[in-house]
């Protein structure tokens, strides 16, 4: 651990893992042809309370975007809005420039795949059965199960490394395997954009890595992935792009190495922290050191130092 060095908070950490970096317009040219999703003054509400307020964000195509922020900041709500689970209260979500609400839900299902937290499976459902559900948007009364569907299911099982478990009922799998099966379902849907709501919550770190490595390999194959994540260090490690949210607004966005500062951590969580650099991958590592005296962006003097808590 002696290789770990505190990064200065004002200057962004200079090292970003090259294979993940959005650096210097690298993403702009090779994104041709990918579907693009962005929001315009998007407001989302549960009942009367607005949860996401007038948000303008764009998902970088073929990159992994992580949405982070404290509980109740509107992360999952934003994801729900992007995935048309919630109707915008104001503004709009634009898929390739068209309002998402004006596109048929079936057509959207061929572009955007979604794994919400509320996913449940009936008893006895096997992994392969579950993954086959992902082909639903490609089927209809006239277009029944085809060779392409079967190939997509096998490819998704491959991507999730689930071939040996394909005929096992879901309830007999470990948490990580089950989560991989759900992601495989979304992968079989074969959409350009994939949205995962806290795919690693309640998993131990081994299972978390299984899931996140899978996410990376999907992005490497040209998918645009959006994740809601709780853990900042994990988000920094696996995302190319970060949206940090507080009270329904995005307070910072960009490459993790550029935006992850102890001031941001204090703003988001009211926690003092030291930002280190991952000795292997060069990504920011957030070490919480204690509660901030008063939450919010206070004086910058204590950045990167141990504030001693309280």
């Amino acid at each position, binding site marked *: 651990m002696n290789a770990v060095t505190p990064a200065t908070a004002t200057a962004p950490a200079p090292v970003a893992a090259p294979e993940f970096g959005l650096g210097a317009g690298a993403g702009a040219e090779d994104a041709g042809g990918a579907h693009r999703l962005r929001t315009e003054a998007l407001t989302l509400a549960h009942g009367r309370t607005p949860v996401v307020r007038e948000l303008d964000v764009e998902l970088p195509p073929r990159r992994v975007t992580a949405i982070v922020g404290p509980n109740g900041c509107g992360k999952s709500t934003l994801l*729900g809005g992007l*995935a*048309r*689970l919630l109707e915008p209260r104001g503004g709009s979500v634009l898929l390739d420039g068209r309002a998402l609400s004006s596109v*048929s*839900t*079936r*057509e*959207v*299902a*061929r572009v*955007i*795949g*979604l*794994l*919400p937290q*509320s*996913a*449940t*499976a*009936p*008893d*006895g*459902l*096997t992994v392969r*059965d*579950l993954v086959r*559900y*992902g082909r*639903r*948007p490609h*089927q209809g009364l006239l277009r029944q199960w085809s060779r392409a569907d079967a190939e997509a299911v096998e490819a998704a099982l491959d991507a999730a490394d689930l071939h040996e478990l394909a005929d096992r009922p879901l309830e007999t799998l470990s948490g990580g395997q089950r989560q991989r099966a759900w992601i495989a379902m*979304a992968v079989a*849907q074969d959409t350009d954009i994939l949205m995962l709501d806290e795919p690693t919550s309640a998993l131990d770190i081994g299972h978390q890595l299984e899931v996140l490595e899978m996410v990376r390999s999907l992005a490497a194959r040209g998918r645009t992935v959006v994740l809601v994540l709780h853990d900042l260090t994990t988000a920094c490690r696996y995302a190319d792009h970060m949206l940090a949210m507080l009270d329904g607004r995005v307070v910072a966005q960009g490459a993790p190495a550029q935006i992850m500062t102890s001031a941001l951590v204090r703003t988001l969580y009211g926690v003092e922290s030291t930002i280190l650099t991952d000795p292997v991958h060069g990504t920011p590592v957030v070490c919480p050191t204690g509660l901030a005296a008063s939450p919010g962006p206070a004086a910058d003097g204590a950045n990167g130092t141990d504030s001693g808590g309280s």
Partner: protein
Amino acid sequence: MTLRKTLLRGLLPVSAVLLAVVAASLLLGAGDVGPARAAAVLLGGADGDADARFTVLELRLPRTAVAVAVGAALGVAGAVLQATARNPLAEPGLLGVSAGASFAVVLAIVLGASATTVGPYAAVLGAAAGCLLALGAARLRGAGDDPVRLVLAGAAFSGMVGAASSVLLLVNQRASDEIRFWTVGSVVGRGTDDLMAVLPVLLLGLAAAAAVSPALSSLALGDDVATGLGHRPRRVRAVAVTSVALLVGGATAVAGPVAFVGLVVPFAARALVGPDLRRLLGVSVLLGPAVVLLADVVSRLVVRPYEMPLGVMTALFGAPVLVAVVRSSRLPSL
């Protein structure tokens, strides 16, 4: 489970059972025509035996056809309602859907309508009302977490509607003989006319169930996942409830309230072919008739020369299954 396995484990054995029970239904009865005479009629060798010909062709054959139609409708309705409520105990009879249907028919009769022509439509409306009330009760806070509560709400509703039917029975003595039929299910004396009157309703209900089954099975993964897969959960549920109302309404119009079939059939079908709704429906549409016919055949034999009403018989079969399901350490989640 592959298509071949579904065939081997589900459709083939259930078809064989159904054929056997159909044969038994034509051969066995409470009256004097025994299996030998009945078999002679079926094989075309009993031209002189007018008594046997009448019994087999005019009584048992239509009755068998009615039982097959009712069983198919109730089996499929049970599977669809369980998937819609996501509750393995959601059964049209237990939830008051059948009670709503029969009350509507009783009301129509008291108001002067003919049971054969108006009955099916009144029954469908009553079934729809019962369905919506039961599912509405299930959506109340907390009830969704506990499958048994839905059944309690249904029992309360059934009791209320049953009491209302009894009141009508007391008030209107003239119609009471006709009404009494609707308080306990039976296929006795039901003929081709009765069946033809409800057949369009039942076929429409089966078609709706088949059409909605892929989308409805996606709802088992959660509403958000289903939306992500391109379905509209509210619309899917509306079609599912409509199909249940058509099936239970049609079945009740021709046979009165027959409980427990919608519980037992999907339960057994799930054990045979697993949780996939489309395979469940395929098996239920054959297993339902087998169960209802079996109950009907037994009801003719246990108290010969009298008959026990079919609804009593299915309750004798079904109630132990309900108790077993509730007592099993853990209800299967749908």
